């Protein structure tokens, strides 16, 4: 297989196993490129990409921008604050205006689920979803699975637990799809109030006891508590959450085996994981960030290179 089956990257749900493997093998090559003394290749020098961030982001935005620049694309950045959206312009008008300036690809983060899909139906350039509300965040899931593959050799057959705020997390949903397509077993772990009822219909295990979850898994992906998305209180206090669902070094050391700790960032040190866990040898958090650039280069390269327009 030499090309992706989709024209846009809206979610992991639309991708096949072969698509994911193609992205991984391409990312392997880009990982070599970004470790060279000169980290830039000219592949997308004729492509203009708009990064539309209607929601705050540090890592994802920088990572995409770096990936675009390392592929020699021209980049324009847009963030919701300080834009005409504040003056009452609709999403489609804003985007159409930007596209009138001849833009080939759009990377978009938006607080509404389905925003990327909506855009792909109405405009004529390639869309990459960089997070749409609590729906999907496909490049994060790809880089997470890529990091597991790098650390453990393969994803197939591995046991991965996703801990924390599953309900409000696009990372969780995309990760579940991605890991299952690659043949991993997935468990979610968190307080009952933060685990949606439908989740078992996705074929994942549910566990409410953190220790049992960690004993079971090879990899623990610790999610951030998204206080900004929680409209009501889902647990009594952060302190109580930390006591029940925070991972400490002491707990890791008391397990019978070594597991890998992942975190999509930004970390709330001392909430979902303690500082010594974040900086421990079990943690591959910074590898995830490095792999993020390689994965995004691969996605951009494969979508831009599709021959059918």
């Amino acid at each position, binding site marked *: 297989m030499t090309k992706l089956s989709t024209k846009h990257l809206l979610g992991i749900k639309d991708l096949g196993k072969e698509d994911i493997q193609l992205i991984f093998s391409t990312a*392997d090559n880009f990982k070599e490129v970004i470790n060279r*003394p000169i980290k830039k290749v000219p592949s997308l020098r004729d492509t203009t990409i708009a990064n539309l961030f209607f929601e705050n982001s540090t890592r994802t935005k920088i990572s995409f921008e770096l990936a675009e620049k390392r592929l020699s694309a021209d980049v324009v950045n847009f963030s919701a604050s300080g834009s005409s959206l504040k003056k009452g312009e609709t999403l489609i008008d804003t985007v159409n205006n930007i596209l009138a300036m001849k833009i080939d690809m759009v990377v978009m983060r938006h607080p509404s689920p389905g925003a990327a899909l909506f855009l792909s139906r109405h405009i004529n350039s390639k869309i990459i979803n960089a997070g749409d509300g609590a729906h999907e965040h496909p490049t994060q899931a790809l880089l997470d699975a890529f990091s597991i593959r790098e650390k453990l050799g393969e994803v197939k057959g591995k046991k991965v637990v996703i801990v924390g705020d599953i309900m409000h997390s696009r990372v969780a949903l995309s990760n579940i799809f991605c890991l299952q397509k690659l043949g991993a077993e997935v468990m979610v772990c968190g307080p009952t109030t933060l685990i949606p009822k439908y989740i078992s219909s996705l074929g994942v295990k549910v566990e409410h006891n953190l220790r049992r979850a960690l004993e079971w898994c090879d990899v623990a992906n610790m999610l951030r508590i998204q206080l900004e998305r929680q409209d009501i209180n889902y647990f009594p206090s952060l302190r109580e959450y930390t006591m029940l669902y925070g991972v400490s070094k002491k707990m890791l050391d008391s397990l019978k085996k070594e597991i890998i700790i992942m975190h999509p960032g930004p970390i709330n040190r001392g909430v979902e994981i303690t500082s010594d866990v974040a900086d421990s040898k079990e943690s591959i958090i910074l590898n995830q960030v490095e792999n993020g650039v390689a994965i995004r280069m691969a996605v951009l390269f494969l979508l831009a290179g599709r*021959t059918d327009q």
Partner: protein
Amino acid sequence: MKPKLILEKKAFELTIIRLCYQLIEIHNDFSNSVIIGLQPRGVFLAKRLNVELERILNKKHLEVGALDVTFHRDDFRKKELIPNATQIDFIIEDKNVILVDDVLFTGRTIRAGLDAMLAFGRPNDVELLVLIDRRLSRNLPIQAKYIGKTIDSVASENVKVDWKETEGHDRVWIYSS
């Protein structure tokens, strides 16, 4: 039409050895020279040259790398391309570089190779070695310095180099479609 054999096993072997001696004439003991094979199939030739050169020079550890040019190609939207690994574990700054590919056709791969190579430093000198030179098909002003065999072929024909490592035999075919 039936494929035509243009280089069989014995001639193939002699050609490789001749190319090695031509290289030694210019590069002596390779103390300041490196060989870079272009992915995918130039790498087989680079490795084969390496084996022969080490035998002839009785010297180990020549610097041999593999370079993938996919990200530097000018036609990456025109066909489906699969990138391969680049492995260059040395700096080519001020070195004499011998770029190696199996077939020289339009010259576009070599053009991309020259570009891609510059990410690893500024070489003192760059030469091109190819096993087969299809001299009538060039689109760019690129010529090889060391040539295994020159053939006259038209663009509709296909030249395929078989390697012991992948196809089980060393030989070169020409197909017409």
